[in-house]
């Protein structure tokens, strides 16, 4: 693995430039997440031919199309289900799932917890912008309390999931969170997640400036990104057992960094060992 400096990393090598300009709104955080992801891919020297990006529906889901790799834009909430089939069938591919807070925690919540439980070697990048941006700005399972959305016109009264705690409790063997504020830090986390043999769940705090930001008067794009800083507490919370927070809801400020990690058996290897044992017995 080679460290690549921010200046010498050429993102264009990993993009389908013919599709630009991209369709994300000005100020959207997802582009920074994409840069961090591709930077990590470059540092790991992953061959684009063997890279598979599986994404669901929503703003996060449309990002895969811009990556010059094997890209699969599947149904809403199901990228982890598709990726499970793909990775089991093709262990030679590096499989990265790009999903959003609605895609993975609402409609796809069941697939997320079972992907965590199985521990197949997939890296799941969950871009959390607290909103259904693609459909025009409805409340999501991570929308902060009291915030306005098109379906919470008087303010949100539902508690927000802490996706990382959820993933850890469900058995994810690598859990981490970073924000788009610090792309190199995010890149390092994603790199570690890809390197980890097993299911990695990575939450990326991203900003929806045009819809969520505007509706809640959260400031312009740079202001929103900078405000992430006041919300972050870059330390590990030491895993569930020692955790003082006894609810699966996101605290504010939220912890960042590698939040949980264990080296339990990877699912694909378990499957292949099971098959090999049976074939030997035959």
């Amino acid at each position, binding site marked *: 693995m080679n460290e690549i400096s921010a200046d010498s990393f050429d993102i264009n090598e990993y993009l*389908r430039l013919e*599709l630009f300009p991209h369709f994300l709104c000005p100020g959207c955080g997802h582009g920074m997440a994409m840069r961090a992801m591709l930077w990590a891919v470059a540092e790991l020297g992953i061959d*684009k*031919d*063997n890279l*598979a990006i*599986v994404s669901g529906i929503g703003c996060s889901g449309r990002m*895969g*199309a811009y990556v*010059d*790799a*094997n*890209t*699969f*834009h*599947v*149904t809403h909430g*199901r990228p982890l*289900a*598709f*990726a*499970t*089939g*793909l*990775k*089991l*069938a*093709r262990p*030679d*591919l590096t499989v990265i799932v790009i999903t959003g807070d609605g895609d993975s925690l609402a409609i796809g919540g*069941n*697939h997320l*917890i*079972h992907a965590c439980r199985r521990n197949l070697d997939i890296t799941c990048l969950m871009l959390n912008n607290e909103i259904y941006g693609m459909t025009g700005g409805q409340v999501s399972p991570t929308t902060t309390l009291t915030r306005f959305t098109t379906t919470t016109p008087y303010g949100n009264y539902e508690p927000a999931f802490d996706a990382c705690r959820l993933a850890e409790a469900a058995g994810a063997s690598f859990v981490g969170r970073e924000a788009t504020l610090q792309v190199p830090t995010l890149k390092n986390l994603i790199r570690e997640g890809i390197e980890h043999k097993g299911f990695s769940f990575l939450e990326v705090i991203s900003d929806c400036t045009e819809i969520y930001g505007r509706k809640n008067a959260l400031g312009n794009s740079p202001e929103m990104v900078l405000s992430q800083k006041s919300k972050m507490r870059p330390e590990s919370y030491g895993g569930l057992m020692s955790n003082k927070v006894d609810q699966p809801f996101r605290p504010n400020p939220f912890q960042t960094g590698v939040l949980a990690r264990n080296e339990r058996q990877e699912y694909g290897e378990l*499957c292949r060992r*099971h*098959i090999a044992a*049976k*074939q030997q017995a*035959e």
Partner: protein
Amino acid sequence: MSKQRLQNIPGNHACALGAVAAGCRFYAGYPITPSSEVAERMSAELPKVGGMFVQMEDEIASMGAVIGASMGGVKAMTATSGPGFSLKQENLGYAAQAEIPCVIINVMRGGPSTGMPTRPAQGDIMQARWGTHGDHPIIVVAPDSVAEIYSETIRAFALSERLRVPVVVLYDEVVGHLIETVDLQPAPEEQLASRKWAEGPREGFLPYRADADMVPPFPRPGDGFRTHTTGLTHDENGFPTQAHERVEAVIGRLLGKLDRHKELIESYEAVGCEDAEVIVTAIGISARAAKKAVATARKNGIKAGLFRPITLWPFPEEAFRKLSAGASAVVVPEMNAGQLALELERFAPGKVSALTRYDGEHIDPSQILKRIEEVLS
């Protein structure tokens, strides 16, 4: 013939063995009566041949994982029953739109909703054709015996791979749990081929540009094509388009694909139709009863015939029109409120007599014989 090739097994086991014989090496499923034996047998058989079995968290995930495995280039299948079939419909539409080969087994039970899980029905005839939203191509085959479940499962893989279209193997609980002798012969050579793989220059490759046969070659991930696959309406380059003139062309090909290969797809059984005054048309266990009723009618001097679509969708329309032209009546016994009868009414207007039953019991040959006599009197 080796002794092992001839086996007395239930239809659901024959399905699993047919899939393995066809080269299926990935199965994802979720338990549901009355199809669970397909999953159980697959979990026992696949490891022996190096294949992957995974029981997923739900029906939707099973369908997703099957498509995911097939995207990776592996022949893949799932099995389910009514409620699960409903849950799979969105992803099934994805497979039709993105042209990902896959085989779905639907063992029909009583509905609607949870209905009668352990009782047979044939109420998914229309769901199998129109279950997912939007116009889409789909092939449905409807075996009526354990032996035919074996051979049609093999053919389902052949059609799915050849045409890059989802194929449903549709049969009722009776046939699924029926124990009969089946000859587990190897899959015919011509039905073993995988999809046509993309070759040639990677630069400028268009993943959805079809060959003259209207089927585009499949770019295998890892082979350097680095293509995009989406459920959005897409152009030949694989990327989304909403330009109406392009949409018409690409969806037109999708829908026309099966027409072009009608001869390959269509399959039916016709017995004594040439001189028949009355034709009985049915699938699955109702067709088994119809066969018996037609034979008895013939013995009694009634000119009766049987037309049994083995490929249910697209329906073998021309053959049916031709064979039923001389008949004065078409009796359609089916374990639903008249789904197939309604379709046949289009091809034999005014002649169709639906014999329906939806109480969880199969239709008896004597009921069909009685109806044959009634329509002729």
